[in-house]
């Protein structure tokens, strides 16, 4: 079964970059440009196998999105996209239900490796 990954980032460049890597690795990807849109997709019945979300986004940021996403998808792994300097954000994300985090820039084999680590069967 193809695994679906929901990518949430306000940067279209970042989305495209993630998407390129994941498509190549055989994942199905869905994208959203902020937390509100992503949450809307979840409410609309999207059931991704993994969510990768940026933290700093307009409308609804990553932390709030993670919190909300947990109300509909309790067991789905969620990874927060952070930069090396955002240690506090990582902790905050974890406290609000994130499974782990990725450090930007992510891409290529590393990304796939991390995903395989948190998504059984990926």
């Amino acid at each position, binding site marked *: 079964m193809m695994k679906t990954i929901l990518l949430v980032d*306000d940067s*279209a460049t*970042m989305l*495209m970059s993630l998407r390129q890597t994941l498509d190549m690795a055989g994942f199905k990807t869905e994208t959203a440009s902020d937390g509100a849109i992503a949450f809307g997709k979840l409410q609309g019945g999207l059931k991704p196998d993994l969510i990768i979300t940026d933290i700093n986004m307009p409308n609804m940021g990553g932390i709030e999105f993670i919190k909300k996403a947990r109300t509909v998808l309790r067991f789905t*792994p969620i990874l927060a996209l952070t930069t090396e300097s955002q240690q506090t954000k990582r902790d905050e994300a*974890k406290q609000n239900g994130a*499974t*782990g985090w990725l450090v*930007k*820039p992510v891409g290529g084999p590393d990304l796939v490796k991390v995903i395989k680590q948190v998504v059984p069967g990926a």
Partner: protein
Amino acid sequence: MNPLLEQFVIESRDFLESIASGLLTLEREPGNSEAIDELFRGVHTLKGNSGLFPEYAAFTHMVHAGEDLLDAVRDGRRNFDAEIADHLLECMDIVSAMLDCIEAGNELAPTLCDAGKELAVSLRALREGSLGAAAAPVEAAAPAEEAPEPVAAEDVSVEALGADDVAETKAQDNQTASPDADADGAQSASSTGAGGGDASLPSGGSIQFRYTPEPACFFKGDDPLFTAINAPGLVHLSVLPLQPWPDSDAFDPYECNLTIVGACEATREELEHHFRYVPDQVEMTTMAANSGQAIAADAVHEPDPQSVDTLAGRGLSEEEEVAAGRILRCQYEVLARTNPENSEGVWRSVAFVLRGLASSHGIAHGSIDEALEACLKTDSGDPLARVLDRMAAGTPHGGEAPAPAPRSAVLRARVLNDDELELVDRILASHVHMLDGEPVAAVLLAAASALAGMRRYEGRVDDATAIQALGAAKDAAGLRQVVANWHSGGALPAATLPVATAPAAAKPPATPAARPAPAVTPAAAAAAAVQKTVAAATAAAARPAANAGAAVAERPTAPAGGGLEAIRSELAEAAIDHSANRVLKVSQEKIDRLMDLIGEMVVAKNALPYLAARAEVSTNPREIAREIKNQYGVINRIAEEMQDAIMQVRMLPVGNIFQRFPRLVRDISRKLGKQVELYMEGEDAEADKNIVESLADPLIHIVRNSLDHGLEPPEERRAAGKSDTGIIRITAFQEADRVIIEIGDDGRGIDPARIKAKALERGMIDEARAATMTDHEAVQLVFAAGFSTAEQISDLSGRGVGMDVVRSAIEKAHGSVQLSSELGRGTRIRIALPLSMAVTNVMIIRSAEQMFGVQMDMVVETVRVPAKAIHAIKQQRTTVLRGRIVPLYALNDLLRIPEPPVPNEEGEVAVLVIRLGEQDVGVIVDDFDATLDLILKPLDGVLGELGGYSGTALLGDGSVLMVLNLKELL
């Protein structure tokens, strides 16, 4: 350009605009936390995105500095001020220029990179709150914390990459330097090798972990078992209940009640990385005493099937003993839980764990296997329990580790045992590989650090220092030699030797490869030998390592400083002029509407073949005709809606071009020393993309004019009783089918007397005209070609082009421009543009039996004028319309067609009243016809020279309609 890069450039340009406007907002309202958040987000994302392209490290580096500065502002560590704004704006200008480079498919221009580096230093200094430091030389201003982002780098991307390695090896190097237990040293030497880029080394240690997921872990998306199973180098795993299982009623399947115990043959770092998301839930214990030996141990020791080694007495560290004890205790528990159904599985599991434990402690496990077999045979767990007892309690076993024996008679401050030697050899082997070819600086540094670490471990500090110097000097050949001659002793190229011991480095006679050395020499003796060599050597230092290192650090970072200033001002200009919208951003709904319409069209079109088939067999052409007409009606409606939808897609808010004004106003007013407040309204008003874009240059020109000529300096304003701060107001709104943009200022206005004088002087008007001209008419003269009132041409707005350029640009877009001015009170310019240029509403007229088109937006009214109401005043035909005198021209005359106008039966002539500027003019034609929406194509080729036509259009019957440009004709 690859699509990702393309996307990056487009998005970055967007960010640049929003960042620039954010900076200006913040400058006005320094406390606006929302603005700072958004600003930070923009810069942050910009940096994050650029990180995807390591080749543009200079870009990332500079923006990163900006981000850090903004972060400090956001946290309140720094107050936002004009200086910060200046620097960040400059940063964005450089980014913009870099994007140009990237878009052109080039590498970043070195001048830009240098400008970026210099700016990064200033930005960092600003963050620290002292710009003064930025003026200091780069080396001094780059503090230690910047080491990961080297300022002085010949190849930024490689260096940035390598810097981490360097930092890493440094850290490990520290470990290596500490003369700890043997095992410690051996391990760090090994991981140093790995840090240097070689992954082929097997990891030395075995680690036991206990992973106790938090009860609510499932609600964080954790999958503890999956995580544990995938632990690197897993050799054993058991899953146990954390608390005794409750009754089925009380059992909560969503609560994790497990603890997972496993053993891995991996380094602690690997495991820590693997469990990085749950560090607080995992305990780790290193199990092997001699980690270097652990794996090899099975082979080293003669397996003794009759004995089970005890764990005690093997020289385990306290930590390891505790871990082993825990594992054993667990196994007791497991054994105790056997029942007839699962006994075999339990025994196998226990045996598995014990085997793992035994092998990781370097002891044979033959008896464990035997015990397992015995258990299975006797159907009792006792044999395994006995083995457990022995392991736990410990029957002393005679098998001491083999006495360490030096492998070869080499210079050695400390004797390494065989295992250590083997490890050393492996590390060396990996370095041969690493140093092959032309390794980059980072690899060299890492290799040198690793080798130096090993020398230190051996107690040969001098060699270590020298090796590191080789690394710093990027001497790959030297390092290769070090590796090749490792066991034969101090075979270092002496050029690098004496950093620590001799004042001047010198090249010794190249000899020492075969130098015999005492079997065991203390470090001091080695140092003495080295010194002797040095003393004997010639004084001519071929390549002093220290100097070589320093030279790298001193590599000039910037070209001539004067050039930079020029680049900067160029950049600022470019940033302002540079924002043509290459990409059309369209809201989802507009596209959706188009999709719907296309869907309808596909369906509607399918009716046509069906109708054609009907027509072939039908005997009733009338009915078929009616059906075709009906179908035409459907398709026509869809086509019209599609046309509308497409037009909507092309509609852009005029705010797109307003965005650059704040920056423009800020920069120019600062340059001129004027205080200006800019107000903008109605940015949401939309117009066709082409219209909006055609507005950009005229608007910039007008705003510059206002700033330069219109608004007075503060003193002059005060003298005139105005407030110091001048006001420029830009307003956009829609009025019927036009979009209106007004630019007003409260400056000195235009002096009609001066305009008249100037016009007279240039011979544009004569005395008589000047005398009769109203003030309003006089100020309109600024639109005349080649008119410029500025006494001194400033570099801002007076480049010999004036308002006439503005007017022609606007008229080219079928717009009009009006100017009103009140001396001393200000000037207002009103630009009216059609919403769209794509489709033109044209009225068809007939004259001399030909059809012509006239753009409806010029037509005021159509009237029939009785011939007798036409009067000739001085050869000029006129008529009176509602009390106003309207001059009349016959279209045939204008087109030089020698035919008189044809009146209708009542003797009336058809007059098309059009508006020319402020005045109405009548054009006599033969007859009026329908109005049509047409797509106007400009004349091109030789016909393009024809002034009297604005274009051609295709009519429904396929004929070509010439559309007149009456302004030009009149």
